[in-house]
């Protein structure tokens, strides 16, 4: 008889991340370890004002009194925080002369993902030729934004040029003492992005971290702050479907979003960091705190995430619905293959009246991958007419993967309407046979079925991102059938 479907599934799901760490990176490091001196050094290197140094030190002292959270479903060896380096200068990627010098496997992946040639060059550190001048693209981009009054710059620039905005909003959504990793980030953050959309402005383009590629390589403790003033709108894309190589094992980023009256932020993430090899060695630990504050009346924050990378993912993009009639949304696809573990979900905190939240989470576990959805819906005592709808679906591929769902409900106002649906299914042998019978091989069939499963989330991504995300799922599940 033919090679069994089970065997094929195992072959497919045991595929390796196809891009090893090939580029030697030159780094300027400060000594390992964490203490007040180190923080002062970081702040001095960055030429920061005193108030920010004090803020960092305050965070550090809070962090010292905290302990690493143990409640997640993630299993990993103890991290020695004194054995890490907390600042490395913006890393210069080794400049290559042409794409011919880039690992052909990497190029193959870029092509499968449909990444245009010029972007491939940018991503792999090929010196950009005269025809394609990334600086000029970035300049045109900056001009357009400037005309609209939009501020989009690195966090460090913002500290220098827009200190009032930073002072007003930094730490207001994720306070320094919020959690262990957020406190750590606040103490040692290296750089990140800052966005301000002025009143009544619809940001004329989608803001993508692509365009900040030359500005700074933000490193492991990234800090992002986005403020949408009254009646404004912005769509922000973080990350890209291209494989991200990084030698920092621990990442602890903080993202804060603020929307004022009638403003909307749509924040989309594609995370494809190194997940470790197929035996579970290496890979990035990703502990992120992402939170949005719907501060104003009828304001809206929408998180969409496609998480396919990292060995460990600890991430709960949340919305605090403070303004009356405000709306929070969370759309997520998370895939764990081989030995990847993801503990991810969201928190929707209803504080204002007539607030509304939607959660759609799709978890995919393949190989030995473990997937946990952890979500909290909290309705405060004075929040009348809160509404929430949650839909958490998990799909298992093969027999060694796992899916876990932990929904928490904390409802303190009886006018709330809460709906929760959860399903877990195995990728069906009947579905595979049906596809096979139509001539579609098992690898393509799995990609087809998984993309169908994720469709309601992909639909929420900006158009070109959605196409890339589909291809990314295919590449992430790809293997060596037959």
């Amino acid at each position, binding site marked *: *008889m*033919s*090679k*069994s*479907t*089970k065997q094929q599934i195992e072959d497919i799901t045991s595929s390796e991340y196809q891009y090893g760490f090939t580029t030697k990176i030159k780094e300027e490091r400060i000594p390992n370890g964490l203490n007040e001196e180190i923080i002062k050094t970081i702040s001095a290197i960055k030429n920061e004002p005193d108030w920010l140094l004090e803020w960092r030190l305050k965070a550090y002292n809070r962090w010292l009194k905290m302990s690493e959270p143990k409640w997640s479903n993630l299993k990993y060896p103890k991290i020695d925080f004194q054995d890490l380096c907390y600042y490395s200068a913006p890393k210069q990627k080794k400049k290559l002369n042409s794409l011919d010098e880039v690992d052909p496997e990497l190029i193959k992946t870029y092509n499968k993902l449909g990444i245009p040639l010029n972007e491939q060059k940018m991503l792999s550190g090929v010196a950009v030729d005269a025809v394609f001048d990334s600086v000029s693209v970035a300049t045109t981009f900056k001009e357009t934004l400037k005309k609209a009054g939009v501020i989009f710059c690195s966090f460090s620039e913002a500290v220098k040029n827009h200190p009032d905005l930073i002072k007003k909003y930094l730490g207001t959504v994720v306070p320094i003492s919020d959690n262990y990793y957020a406190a750590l980030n606040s103490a040692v953050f290296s750089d990140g992005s800052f966005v301000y959309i002025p009143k009544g402005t619809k940001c004329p383009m989608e803001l993508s971290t692509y365009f900040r590629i030359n500005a700074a390589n933000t490193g492991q403790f990234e800090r992002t702050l986005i403020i949408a003033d009254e009646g404004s709108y912005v769509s922000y894309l973080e990350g890209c479907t291209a494989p991200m190589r990084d030698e920092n094992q621990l990442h602890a980023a903080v993202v804060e979003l603020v929307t004022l009256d009638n403003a909307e932020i749509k924040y989309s993430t594609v995370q494809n960091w190194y997940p470790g090899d197929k035996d579970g060695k290496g890979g990035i630990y990703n502990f992120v705190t992402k939170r949005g504050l719907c501060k104003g009346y009828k304001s809206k924050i929408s998180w969409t995430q496609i998480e396919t990378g990292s060995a460990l993912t600890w991430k709960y993009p949340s919305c605090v619905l403070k303004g009356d009639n405000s709306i929070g949304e969370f759309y997520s696809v998370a895939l764990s293959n081989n030995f990847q573990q993801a503990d991810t979900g969201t928190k929707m905190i209803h504080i204002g009246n007539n607030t509304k939240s939607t959660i759609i989470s799709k978890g995919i576990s393949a190989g030995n991958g473990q997937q946990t959805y952890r979500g909290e819906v909290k309705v405060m005592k004075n929040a009348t007419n809160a509404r929430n709808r949650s839909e958490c679906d998990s799909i298992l591929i093969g027999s060694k993967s796992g899916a876990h769902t932990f929904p928490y409900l904390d409802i303190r106002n009886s006018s709330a309407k809460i709906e929760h649906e959860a399903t877990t299914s195995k990728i*069906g*042998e*009947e*579905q595979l*046979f*049906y*596809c*096979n*019978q*139509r*001539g*579609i*091989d*098992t690898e*393509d069939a799995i990609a*087809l*079925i998984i*993309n*169908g*499963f*994720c*469709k*309601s989330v992909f639909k929420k991504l900006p158009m070109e991102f959605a196409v890339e995300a589909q291809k990314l799922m295919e590449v992430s599940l790809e293997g060596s059938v037959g």
Partner: protein
Amino acid sequence: MLKIKNLNAGVDDKNILNNINLNINSGEFHVIMGTNGTGKSTLGNVLAGKDNYNIHSGDIIYKNKSIIDLSPDERAHEGIFMSFQYPVSIPGVNTMHFLRTAVNSIRKSKNQDEIEPGDFIKLFKEKLELIGLKSEFSKRSVNDGFSGGEKKRFEIIQMLLLNPDLIILDETDSGLDIDAIRIVSNGINAFRDKNKSFILITHYNRILNYLKPDFVHVMLNGTIVKSGGRELAVELEEKGYEWIK
């Protein structure tokens, strides 16, 4: 086209099919009838290459080659098609996208270029109309929320687009009303020619009025106990299976 030789097959060690012998020439239309649980659908699944079944002895020769070592998708590439008794739903996967993937997979196996999307859309809509489905059907997910009748019609549309040579129709008539049986039969008849062979599994004589088969076989306890022409089905309807036992 197809020669089934002394076939013994089933799940694990257990036989469901006992010593099946069947010869099907190009252009012939065969019908298999029999009581519930007698192995008719198993025969269809074994021909299509479903994983859960083991062949204990015997052989299946298709186009002069044994196919028992081929995977289901390889058999599909060779021109074997099965219309499922209970088509499974694939949520989120659009019917048109699904079928285009299938058509292109088969074309690829023959080293042909992918079909132009525009050409495919035209072809798909044409077949939808032929089988009496609205063009909005192309926006739905595969078998998801379909009525019983829609599922069977969609199976026939797939047959028309994939253009197979050996077609297994597993209870294609069940769940269809009289009008639908006529429309589906017309679709099948329009597809028949001297190079295509059919195996229809059914419980009812009614669809045979439209399809006019060449041979009728009766299966009992996993084996073919009686073969004949069209008249055998009529006789069965009058006398029931007890008559054969």
